[in-house]
């Protein structure tokens, strides 16, 4: 499994962070933007269906949809922040993906805890970038 793209999308479905985890051309980066944006519909569908009354929602959404070359996985926080990985074959195990997303979420929490970060604005933190790269390279 290779994670080719990691993305964070805000509450208003605005991109906060999107980074190709492998060297990618401009066209590939653009394609990741499209793929991540397209995944938002599935995120919303899964979020709407994931909880039954009295059930604690699971943040991990599993695979959102497959493309010809990739599979898109999603994770949503309690504050409706969406975390998305675009993964190359072979398909990973759900437990592995869940752990990766939790680390991704923790790195995001570190960023937003920075008092100089403005909520809802794109993340430009180099430390967050380094954290994400560490996460995706330890797969």
């Amino acid at each position, binding site marked *: 499994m290779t994670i080719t793209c990691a993305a964070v999308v805000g509450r208003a479905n605005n991109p906060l962070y999107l980074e190709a985890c492998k060297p990618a051309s401009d066209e590939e980066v653009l394609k990741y*933007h499209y793929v991540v944006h*397209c995944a938002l*519909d599935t995120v919303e569908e899964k979020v709407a269906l994931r909880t039954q009354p009295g059930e604690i929602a699971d943040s991990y959404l599993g695979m959102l949809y497959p493309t010809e070359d990739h599979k898109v996985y999603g994770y949503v926080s309690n504050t409706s922040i969406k975390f998305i990985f675009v993964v190359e074959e072979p398909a990973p195990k759900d437990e592995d993906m869940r752990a990766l997303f939790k680390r991704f979420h923790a790195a995001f929490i570190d960023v937003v805890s920075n008092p100089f970060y403005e909520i809802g604005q794109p993340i430009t933190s180099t430390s967050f970038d380094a954290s994400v790269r560490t996460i995706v390279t330890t797969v």
Partner: protein
Amino acid sequence: MDLRNWILERVSPAVMVVSSPAADAICREKNGLTVVDLLRPHGSFHHLSVPVRTVGDTSYRIRELQLRFFHSQTMTQPSREVADEHLHQLLNTLAKEHVDNEPTSMVHLLRKGSLSYQTPWFERYRQEFFRMLAFAEHECYDHPVACLYVVHVDAEDIVAELQQLQAGGNVPPLMRQGLMEASILQHCLVLHDATSEGGDARAQEQLKTLAARSNCSCSLMKVHVGTSDRKANGEPGHAGLWRAHFQPRLPRASAGELPDRPEEPDQGLGAALSSTDLKTITQVLEDFTVRYLLPDLELRLRALNQQVLVSRKGLRNQLKSLWRGKSASSTSLANNSNNHTAPAPETPGRTGPTPTAAGGQAYSTGSMEFQMRMLADVAFLMQDYELAGTTLRLLAADFKSDRAWKHYAGAQEMLALASFMAGASMATVTAAFSEAFSAYTEVARAAREPAAMVRYATRTALMLAEYQRAHGQFPEAHSALLQGYRQEYEMGSSMRAALLLEQAALFQLHRTPALTHKFAFYIVLAGTEYQKSSLLRLRAHAYRQALPVYQGKEWNYIKEHLHDALGKQLREGGEPVAAARHFVALLPGAFNPEAWQAYFLQQLLDTVQEAAAKGKVPPLDLPVPEVDVSRVLVRHDDHICHADSAALSQPLDQWRLLEGPLGAGAEGTTSWLDEPSSKAAVRPPTIVADEPLTLTLNMSNPMKLPLRLSHLRLSCSHSLCRDEASLSQYVQADELEFTLDPSDAVQIGLSVRPLQPGMLTVDGLEWTLNDHVRGFRAFPARDPAPSRRTTGVRRGAAVRDRRILQSRTFNVIPAMPRLEVHMENAPPSLLQGQLFCCRLSLRNTGPTPLKSLRMATLHPDIHLAPLDPSHDDDPLGPLSQSSADTQPGAHSGASPPHQHSPLGQSRVVARSHTAKHGVHVQTWPSELAIEPGQALRWNLWLHPRSYEPLLALLSWCYEAAQSPSDGPRQRLLRMTARYDVQPALAVTPVLTPSAQDLHKHLLRLDLDNSQGATALDISEVACSTPGWSLTPIADRGHAGAAPSAIGGSTGRPGVQHQHLEMPAGTRRAAFFHLHPPTRSGGNVTSGVRWMEADAGPLAHFQARPSHPPTEARGTRRTSDTSTDGASPSPAPVPSPSRAAPPGSPFAAAQGPLWDSPNILVAWRSHAQPASTSGEALGAEVPQAVGAVHLLDCRLQEGQAPIRALAEGCGRVTHDFAAAGACSVPLRLHLRNCLPHPAGLSVEAGHMQPHTAPSEAGAWRCLSVPADGPVQASDSQAVGPPAALDHLWCGCACTRIPDLPSGHQTSITLQVAVFAPGLYKIADYGIGWTTTSQGAQQGSFPGPPFLLQVDAAVPS
């Protein structure tokens, strides 16, 4: 489309038409039609009632039927290349017809709840695509069921001509190959032209001949009867009917169409055909259908069914088939069939179908499978869907066992349609379609030309998607189209892939909830596929549909990609204006590096220049610079003018309070009747012609590049202006030009001046970017909704904020006089207590004269002089002459002459009065008119008496000298005067009774300049209350106080006039005797003063209490006492601010004798307070003068209302040797300071000695110099009271029954001492009682008396 109707039209009997040249020529020459074109519109029958019986015992009726007519040579399928080329051209044509640059956004339609299909090219494409796949060899519903021969009645040998047609070999290629049934119904149609020679008799004769000698049925069709109906434009009335049935043509005859069409005659299509002809054709074809075609099909179906029953149905046949293989039966059946083409030779070693050149497999017409397929399709055409379905299921099993996947797929596809028409379940229909799709896919993988085979799979996917869409199953329909897309994508057919993706994307919008993100994704993919197939207009349409999804959510990379692609495409397509709009969207691109921003900007500039070369380029909605149009500040004047922004920011209530006494303006008096109704139309704001309308807005440069802005101005329109060229006659707009550096933000003010009355609309802002691109930003067109205030007005009252642009439209009224007030020598700041004369210039800048000038203010620290400057009194007295040299404009005498004064040489007096709520109103004579351009100068005195900024509101009201025909008569000018006030001298008076005089007071002034930064000279201390006077007392030089210089009297009572220096940061004290007025009234202040406290502005300021908390407070004293401005001598008004506490004897002490005087402390500084900005350091600054008003000085609390003074010989010499006791007379003076008579009593020897409170009065406690033997008998001694060293003699208690108020009396007491020494006589007391206005009484110790007794030296 409705799927059922579509199937009925699409799967309907096909009739092969073979016409003679003569018959064809009649139609071509006179009507521009072929015979097939003539018949096609009349092949639909909707009111049939033909009973048919197929295989069962029961019959049913066919009520609707559609016939399809084809030329015999066109009943063949075009090659894939030809078909794709044709479809590509068709799409291009459709795109030009239907795709525009501003398509309706599907997402917007979805949000409005009116989503509908907006892809008409897809419907046409699908229709043509299906047509291209017709006449396949593996399905029979396109095979002809009848052959219609058309001959002309004028033929010499009509029978021979028919035979020639029958033998001419005009058959479809498949029929020639034996893959199409050739044994079909034959019918001859005799075409009779009514205009030809011969007439009906010959036609009937020919028909009889033909019927007798030919082997087919015949019928006569008479045309060209009557005259054609014409439209208003001369076109034949039915031209549209023929044109609606025209199909696009292909290079070669195929797909049911000839490659060329007859030339359209000059008279139009169908010019020779009348309504009678149309009815005749319809009747002939219906007769053919009912009498010949349907019975023939019925018989044919029965025969086919019988054959299938014999060979394939039933248990015996099935077992036989399983045991021996069906090929035997097929072969035998084929061999037994005489009417059909011989079956194709079987492949050695393999049974079943024959491989074809296309890579598929073919069953000949004699094969059992073909017969079964024919049976199923004829049953379908005869609308017996049950029979068709049953046969197709059986047939599908046979094809499957034969591995004839193409035929199997065709059978499944037809089975799906039959199941649908028979009302089978969705699962059945969907399963059949899916099976067909899978089979076609399998065939394609193994085929030599897979792309051709994939088209059938795509056809199946389209039908399945349409079926599922019709049933609301959009996700499934989406999946079906995606499957088709993948097949086409793999085959490289990007055109169909794009179409399928586009439709799949649209289905995402129809889901609940709509998946807009996926829609955008697939529509962009579709655009990419369109680009591959060079369908650029459709690509642009797809991208434009995706754009709204990404708008406003910061998916900048995607937006950039789409806009860049669209812009480049439009520019290459010769539409630079449209391209520029997309390039504009690439700006500012703040996330892009500078180089990219420069590239995008240059791209825009180049495109606009290219567009400008072709014609005028409309202004673009440029995002750079960023303009905050949400909050645009507006500045305009109607009948109310505001001199500055501070005046605009003041609460409206304050202005209303001021303007109420002026009687001007509708805003002065409002009630609930005046409140605007929420339902009523809000009138636009009013502005005056020839006066500027100024808008202030914020602008910033978000790019990393400098932006050059030129021709920056407001874009306006005027209601009277009809064309843009003459706009300058109605509106005059200011322009700006500057360069915005990267990341700069500026606030700009733009003005527009309407020149004519009417309606002025400010549409927005326009500018030119980098000298090429004209930008425009519209102001939001919102209703002037009132904003709600939470304080100051009653709940619910809505008040408009005049400062914010809320309406783009303004009502321009005719020009009016306009008063502008300018302070010529406005100081930057003032000292606390400073008295400053500010020279006002009241100028009429309007085009008409003004009159009836009035002014209102509430602030007590400003005062408008009552006289014009040339006659104004000088309140500064002698100092004015000395200070005039260094303080220009500090007083009225320094007013320079002016040439255009409206005053002339007459003395102008402004009357003033105090109106309700304490508003001070000044009124100029009504006959005083200020002509346009003239100025009236007047003096305004400023006297800030507290250490806080001075903010005064002044409202000026005036009228137009000539009554206007339209618009308001009065006009208001609201202005504010705001000055910073620096701390200066603070004075605290301490007033105590004098111990040496019953009338005088001792006054101590604590002068505090500790907070000031300016050195002051105390120039004068004066008592401004009439009758009161001051005399100085030499400074005792107590600790902390510098020796006072105010020691010398000028000989003028009431005024002390010598300088006391008060450097910055010092405190001092000064001491005075304060002399109250005597009853004789002789001690009256008079003479020349340095500062006239009882006249001019000082009298005004003294009469008005210092600085009210707010102007709007309504708890002011009300007095309508009018005073003449010519003799301004207002009586001092006692301040109620320091009233005695209730219950004390002072509470009633309001009489003249107990009145409290006002004291004025005048000072001047060496320098004015420094300017904060205007004046340079070190510059010479003028002298300042000021005054501190000590109003209502009163005695300290605790002072007795009866004043007493002990008087006697303080030092006596007594010979104690001669007489042991020394009797000394002590005279006690008593004065009643109460406002009413009082009874007094003096008791000696019963009171403890009085202890003077320390630090309470003007004097401090002093230590008695111990320069002699002192035998003080203070009661402060500890222990039992010592024996008195003196005795009172005579009457120890004296009563004075009634001492009138203000009177004094004296009594004499005798005290005896027995030894020399210094005695303090204080053991007596004074009591008082009053009887009037409630009995009050009190007592206090008598004033101590020091007595020094010396022993006489014996001589």
